[in-house]
């Protein structure tokens, strides 16, 4: 789930220069449109292959639906108000709310751990114990306590999404330049002003990367919790219930496609924001 971004989590943004070396010598750099066209071509080839596979009868019809059917069904569902209110909105609500709470908890926590070494040492054991628990494994326990509603999903999302944001905040704080801090101190700024004007802005790109990671993790938890809980509202419920019907393959695949699109959309929006907000950070790394 987070494999794609994990080098960025560890080293903050410092993994960026590899992009440059990947560009072959003498090969012209692709424009953004050029890359988009290639990406789209890849998607179309895969879709066509799946379509042929399903239509040819090489795979049983109840294991694979033709791509065209799935796309048509997705369009149908997106035009259906009942699908929105019963499936999309509950998932989006839990996803968004969980993320907002997670960030609101994780950033101050990261700031605290990053600026007060004593607290960091004191909490390390607890953190190291809690962090490795796969959050998906907590779904049954939390549903037992909180039922299958919004609270359950939000609690799980918050639990899972807090870690990347908190740790990226913690690492990001260490990235503030000591010379910049000394400069402000020498102009007479106090510790809080230095935190606010130097340390925190320097950490923002890292925190943002943490939020990006947390966004995809939160979607996994939202949909996963719904599927496992089996009752209530949400996209996961739609997928889970389709699984139980006789010819549900098409709806299972459509629900999965829509969940994937949600993740893709959120990630693209955040990536777009990252490029606009942190131009200075990218520049710094390249220089």
């Amino acid at each position: 789930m987070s494999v794609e971004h994990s080098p960025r989590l560890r080293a903050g943004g410092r993994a960026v220069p590899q992009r440059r070396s990947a560009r072959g010598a003498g090969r012209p750099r692709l424009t953004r449109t050029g890359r988009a066209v290639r990406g789209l071509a890849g998607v179309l080839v895969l879709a066509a292959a799946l379509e042929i596979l399903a239509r040819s009868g090489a795979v049983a019809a109840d294991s694979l639906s033709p791509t065209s059917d799935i796309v048509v069904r997705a369009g149908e569902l997106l035009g259906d108000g009942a699908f929105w209110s019963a499936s999309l909105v509950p998932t989006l609500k839990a996803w968004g709310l969980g993320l907002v709470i997670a960030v609101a908890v994780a950033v101050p926590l990261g700031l605290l751990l990053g600026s007060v070494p004593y607290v960091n040492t004191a909490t390390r054991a607890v953190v190291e114990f809690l962090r490795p628990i796969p959050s998906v494994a907590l779904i049954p326990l939390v549903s037992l306590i909180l039922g299958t509603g919004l609270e359950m999903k939000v609690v799980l999302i918050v639990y899972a999404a807090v870690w990347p944001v908190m740790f990226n905040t913690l690492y990001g704080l260490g990235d503030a330049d000591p010379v910049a801090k000394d400069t402000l101190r020498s102009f007479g700024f106090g510790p809080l002003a230095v935190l606010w004007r130097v340390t925190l802005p320097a950490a923002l790109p890292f925190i943002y990367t943490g939020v990006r990671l947390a966004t995809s993790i939160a979607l996994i938890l939202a949909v996963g919790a719904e599927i496992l809980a089996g009752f209530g509202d949400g996209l996961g419920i739609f997928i889970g219930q389709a699984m139980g019907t006789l010819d549900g393959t098409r709806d299972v695949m459509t629900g999965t496609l829509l969940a994937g699109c949600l993740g893709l959309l959120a990630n693209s929006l955040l990536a777009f924001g990252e490029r606009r907000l942190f131009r200075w950070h990218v520049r710094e790394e390249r220089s």
Partner: protein
Amino acid sequence: MLRIDGLSHRYGEHAVLDDMTLEVAEGELVSIVGPSGCGKSTLLRCIAGLISPTSGRVTLDGTPVDGVPDGLAVVFQDYSRSLLPWLTVRDNVALPLRRRGKSKAERRAAADEALASVGLPDAGRKYPWQLSGGMQQRVSIARALAYRPSLLLMDEPFGSVDAQTREDLEDLVLRVHRTGGMTILLVTHDIDESVYVGDRVVVLGRNPGHIRAEIDVTLPPERDQIATRADAEFVRLRAEVGRLVRGAASGPVAA
């Protein structure tokens, strides 16, 4: 204006500064020159109140320095790291003025004026990383000037710029000093530079850092990159400082 009394500093077992005593008069421009490892930067950090010395004390206008004193500005050697990359050049220059309780309009005006005085009247809207190294260092000098400090500390401010820019910046400091009347301490490892800009040159020795000699620069206050450097008195002073620095580099020598 500034008094340093028996200043010593050690990091753990390692002594960096040993019993330094120095007095700087109001409006004086003192160059501090010495080989690497003579504790120049530590000395500046003690004066700036960024670290407190192991023993001895620093007094500014009669008040002991305990924490960062008011009316101080430091120009760090590492200009690119000292500017905040997420702020425009103008906002970087204007930022310290918040400490002066000025309005936004006043801060902007002061920043623009300071940028013009360092020859960068049009750079205000750019970001530091869009400028060359020499220009970035000018910005950090402009930031110090806009603040109108009574004491300006410069830590090898021209260490990493090209020769032409370096001469321009030296002349800029001289001009600022003449018109602004502030007290300036300029740390450098360049012997020519120490004589060219200084009213007085303080030569440091190392292991641990100590004051080896103080030399009055007996040159007229008006300096010129070509004429002054060809002046017989300049050549004599440079040789004298050079001998002292070289002697300092080879370790303690019996006087």
